[in-house]
């Protein structure tokens, strides 16, 4: 990953609100991040932390209503995806930005064979003839490691196993050679041995194709093995962002620190008792006026209830949104 390269995707101050009968839910609050060419950005957070909503709103995949993208800019190749025309967005989505969803069974259409589904973006976006598209589809299926590809084009999704279906999804997402691939919990529904296969495939594809990837997950183990940079989300906000090694070696935010301690591993020492983050994730019925984590935080200060901390730089490419400084165990000097 070349340093200082222009980001392929630059998100600034994104804000998404859901209108529900019970009031407005502030799912994403002023999220900013960028994605450099060829980089793998891991996004971690619990369910409801806004990680999927952020990524889906980038390319207009949220139904509106109820969703409402209030503020922000999503710059992709100099264009703001939030203000561009639906036609422009359609020409980018699926072609230059690919998407892989969590559950490969519900995201593939059961009444079309997989050949049709892989060829669809090729014919729509790249205007390939049927025969050319079929050849490319076979190439793609071989690329993602599906044996006997030519024959399997005529098979339907139910004839594939879970891991194979996820490979098909990856093939569809890669069909038009995207610059950016957004993967939303792509291995969560899979078994560990199949997950290991898919992770190996993604490592291999990155070497071959070099696209930038956003990888959403709640599994810190997956992040450790695959990401270059990590963004931790909590309560609809980015609370910490850092190169992967730095995050695991020197976590700054109390949430990140607690999260790393609650997850047991299969190697190394086995703790007698698991560390627990007490309490529940916040319900985001109002725009944040204070730190969203303060009720569960062991280091909360009076200031945390009054102000929402902004992200401050703490190291090379490492920033955190917290008033507490682990180095001094006191307030952070701004």
């Amino acid at each position, binding site marked *: 990953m070349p340093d200082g390269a222009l980001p392929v995707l630059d998100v600034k101050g994104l804000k998404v609100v859901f209108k529900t009968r019970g009031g407005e839910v502030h799912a994403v609050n002023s999220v900013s991040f960028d994605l450099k060419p060829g980089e793998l950005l891991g996004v971690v957070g619990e369910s409801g932390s806004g990680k999927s909503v952020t990524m889906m709103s980038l390319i207009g995949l949220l139904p509106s209503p109820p969703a409402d993208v209030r503020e922000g800019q999503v710059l992709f190749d100099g264009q703001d995806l939030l203000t561009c025309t639906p036609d422009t967005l359609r020409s980018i989505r699926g072609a230059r930005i690919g998407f892989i969803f969590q559950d490969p069974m519900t995201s593939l259409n059961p009444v079309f064979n997989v050949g049709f589904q892989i060829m669809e973006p090729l014919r729509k976006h790249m205007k390939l003839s049927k025969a050319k598209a079929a050849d490319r589809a076979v190439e793609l299926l071989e690329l993602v490691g599906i044996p006997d590809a030519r024959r399997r084009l005529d098979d339907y999704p139910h004839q594939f196993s879970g891991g194979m279906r996820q490979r098909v999804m990856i093939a569809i997402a890669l069909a038009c050679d995207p610059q950016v691939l957004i993967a939303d919990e792509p291995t969560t529904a899979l*078994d560990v*041995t199949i997950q290991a296969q898919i992770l190996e495939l993604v490592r291999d594809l990155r070497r071959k194709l070099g696209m930038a990837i956003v990888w959403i997950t709640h599994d810190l183990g997956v992040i*450790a*093995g695959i990401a270059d940079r990590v963004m931790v989300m909590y309560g609809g906000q980015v609370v910490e962002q850092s190169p*992967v*090694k730095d995050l*695991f070696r020197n976590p700054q935010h109390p949430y990140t620190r*607690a999260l790393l301690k609650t997850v047991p*591993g299969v190697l*190394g020492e086995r703790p007698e008792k698991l560390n627990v983050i007490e309490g529940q994730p916040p319900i985001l019925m109002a725009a944040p006026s204070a730190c969203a984590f303060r009720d569960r935080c062991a280091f909360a200060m009076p200031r945390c209830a009054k102000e929402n901390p902004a992200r401050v730089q703490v190291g090379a490419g490492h920033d955190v949104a917290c008033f507490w400084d682990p180095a001094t165990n006191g307030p952070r000097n701004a």
Partner: protein
Amino acid sequence: MGRAMLDATNTQKTLVTVRGLKMYFPIHSGFLRRHTGDVKAVDGVSFDIYEGETLGLVGESGCGKSTCGRALIRLYEVTDGVVTINGKEIAKANPQDLRAMRPTMQMVFQDPQASLNPRMTLASIIGEPLIEHTKMTKAERQARIYELMDAVGLNRSFVNRYPHEFSGGQRQRIGIARALALNPKFIVCDEPIAALDVSIQAQVVNLLEELQARLGLTYLFISHDLSMVRHIADRVAVMYLGKVVELGPRDAIFADPLHPYTEALLSAVPEPDPSLENTRERIILKGDVPSPANPPKGCNFCTRCPKVMEMCRSIEPTYREVQPGRFLACHLYDQNNTSAGSTSGIEASQKHVQQGELQ
């Protein structure tokens, strides 16, 4: 395999004994819906669970671990095999006897949303087993419900609320309170944390451990999350395609897995540490789990095993004790196996087998 041999190395009291448990689901096909085959979800499983311990049962989805847990407390009519819990045979018991045995064995289900009736209040959910199985008065029942809610950390003021008013972690606490209502000895926990968030998982696991210490419970902890199993279990059984392929003490299994499947499974678990993660050697299994309706000939794992030998494709390995307390079904550890390539694992195993013989 005799029972005497299984028990020889352990002085602890056995609470649950499972011998040759089989659970087949029939396949009916054709115009006449004739019985044309079976899905062999659990195919001859034997193990013991000692009193007060947690046996972790791990494996990939579809390997039969949940079916095994359910068949064990007879939520299914088992095809074959013997299960005794607390000295009483249960697999073939008649319905009246079975009903009397129910209070000793309970279950915590995976999805707390689906396993709680949305139209019952918390009090009626936790109180239902008390009405069914005890002769408590209303006041006694109320007292017991409060006691259970305290035990699992639910606020007493929630007693008249409905399941949808609770979060996932709280719902799982309700499920645990219901399972505890009748003072069971043995609880089958079927993926109790799989539907919960990481930070909530630890809360529930700690609760289960604390209750075990306080009430002397015995758990069968079914999970696909190996790192959590390593935390909670005393012994671990690994299932693959309807069979237990390896069983042993937790530390031994995680430090020195014998079966190639256990080894691959452990190496596939991503470790939350980038420096370890980048230096680890991964064993990536090829392909998928075969269908349990049509398992391969010989060893069930022969289609994906990185150390497969000729004999694995024709002869089924027997499940036996290869080291004190460690059970295994693999030809790599057959004592007169000289045809296999000389990997260090095999040499080590022959030493283990010899040790086993001395006993």
